[in-house]
């Protein structure tokens, strides 16, 4: 059994890492694969292509837009969902099943349908909204819903939010005070989990940005890769590492609080 498990893990590892290694070789080694011999294995490695991309103003613009979108999506997610999840948990726990179903909807409706629907509605009423790159924020908040809402909901349940709310109410606290002073400090783990997941989704999301003709990091990468396949691949690896780093920081922050992503409901 143990042997089988080890073999399975090795195969799984190969499945994930061989393409990544191939990608890295293609991106950073300037020796065509047909000419690659064992002696040339260490020749021609360079990250100059990647450094060049970093200097590319278009890349910088796209990255800043993506990071801004990430921060805004996280803020909007927390500002909208935290009170909503708290309200459902405290005042209407019977709606929880319905809320879970609703939060899954964005993944049932394909992005193209979402974009077309929203575009048709807003183009006639608030055209400036669609013109701004920030019009992506609501889509990202929706797109992250199944993960962010569940993380917050699990956090609220694990601290017994309803009892804490009622205890604070009897003492004379307003709902705002309760959310800020009692609920938020006790569910930092869930807030971190919701934020990390939203960040990871935003940094990798392509469909909405492409459909709305916005230049974000993923759309820039797709475009860039067509003209500069090597540097494009290098950039893809770098972004992947960045996302992994964000998740790792989040998981570490959770561990410090004795939680993991699973405990945060993900």
């Amino acid at each position: 059994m143990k042997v089988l498990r080890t073999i399975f893990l090795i195969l799984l590892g190969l499945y994930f890492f061989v393409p990544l290694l191939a990608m890295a070789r293609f991106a950073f080694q300037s020796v065509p694969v047909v000419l690659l011999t064992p002696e040339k294995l260490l020749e021609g490695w360079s990250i100059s292509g990647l450094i060049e991309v970093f200097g590319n103003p278009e890349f910088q613009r796209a990255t800043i837009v993506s990071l801004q979108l990430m921060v805004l999506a996280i803020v909007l997610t927390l500002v909208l969902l935290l009170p909503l999840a708290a309200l459902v948990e405290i005042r209407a726990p019977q709606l929880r099943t319905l809320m879970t179903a609703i939060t899954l909807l964005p993944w049932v409706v394909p992005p193209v349908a979402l974009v077309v629907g929203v575009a048709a509605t807003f183009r006639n009423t608030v055209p400036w909204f669609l013109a701004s790159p920030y019009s992506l924020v609501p889509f990202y908040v929706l797109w992250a819903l199944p993960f962010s809402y569940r993380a917050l909901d699990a956090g609220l349940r694990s601290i017994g939010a309803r009892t804490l709310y009622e205890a604070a109410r009897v003492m004379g606290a307003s709902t705002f005070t309760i959310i800020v002073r009692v609920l938020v400090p006790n569910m930092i783990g869930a807030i971190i989990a919701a934020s990390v997941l939203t960040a990871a989704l935003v940094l990798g999301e392509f469909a909405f940005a492409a459909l709305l003709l916005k230049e974000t990091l993923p759309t820039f990468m797709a475009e860039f890769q067509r003209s500069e396949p090597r540097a494009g691949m290098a950039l893809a690896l770098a972004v992947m590492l960045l996302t992994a780093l964000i998740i790792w920081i989040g998981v570490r922050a959770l561990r410090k609080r004795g939680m993991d992503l699973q405990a945060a409901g993900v």
Partner: protein
Amino acid sequence: MAKVFMSGIRKEFGSTVALSDFTLEIESGELVCLLGPSGCGKTTALRILAGFEKADAGSVTVGGEDITYVPTPKRNFGMVFQEYSLFPNMTGRENVEFALKLRKAGSAERKDTIDRLLEVTGLTPHADKFPHQMSGGQRQRVALARALASNPRVLLLDEPLSALDAKVRDSLREEIRRVQREIGVTTLFVTHDQHEALAIADRVGVMSHGRLEQIDPPRALYEQPDSAFVAGFVGTVNRIPAQVDGDRWRVLNRSVSASQTVDGATLAAIRPEQIAVDVDAAGDDTVREVVFLGPLTRLTVDHGGSTLIADVLTSEFGGATMGDRVRVRLRDDVDAIVLIEG
């Protein structure tokens, strides 16, 4: 300190009637327990008093002031919950202080009150621990101190001992009573545990199906139950048919008076300790079960086809075993019985 008066309260959840014409009066400084099986409406009554639920009909007054529509934060009540309700991000002291800050108490007043309450509840050594570092009993003591911090008009206790183990439960129960007497706060205590209710309350209200069946001091409730439900719910009771005997009643071959009766009632409610069991080889009754309880021994006896439960003093008990022939009778010191509906 304030007198509580809940009058004609009705509450429905969908098609379920949780409370129906519920009226309860709690004197200033009194501790009243609401006792009843789960789903009887006792917690709903407490939640309406706290302002967490709105009554469909009826009114709530505290100290003469109608608070039916006053929101919870403005009622100035203290409450201890069944679940641990301390704020996990605050120490014991900070939890108590939170309540005081909300009432805008000055820092000197806060310190005095916290020190006094921590001392009264015996928590001074644990004041700076976080809830997860405390035992269940300590947490509930902090919750009690926190509930009392703002000098509440009414203290509400919603099964505060249910999550604790038996030994801690007993000592904390006595402590709650002592602190409540010392501070003299009007208190409503909700529980499903009859021993708890009888031990702690000035008066116990027994509830069933959203109604208050009877409210009396513990001893009166035990000795003079108004209904078969109360007799059966509070303590153990034998329902024994009684025959009219002039203006008296005949029960287990003894003629006794009825201290309390309901129209048309022919069943006597006899407590196990009111029955004596004599070992007698010529007796008509048979011992079915013997349970040793320390000072008492509980006997289950087959008496003319029905089963009776008798608690006899172990020291006076003849040592019958299962299957032995015995004779049951009313104890000599029982001269009046309670008749409940037939």
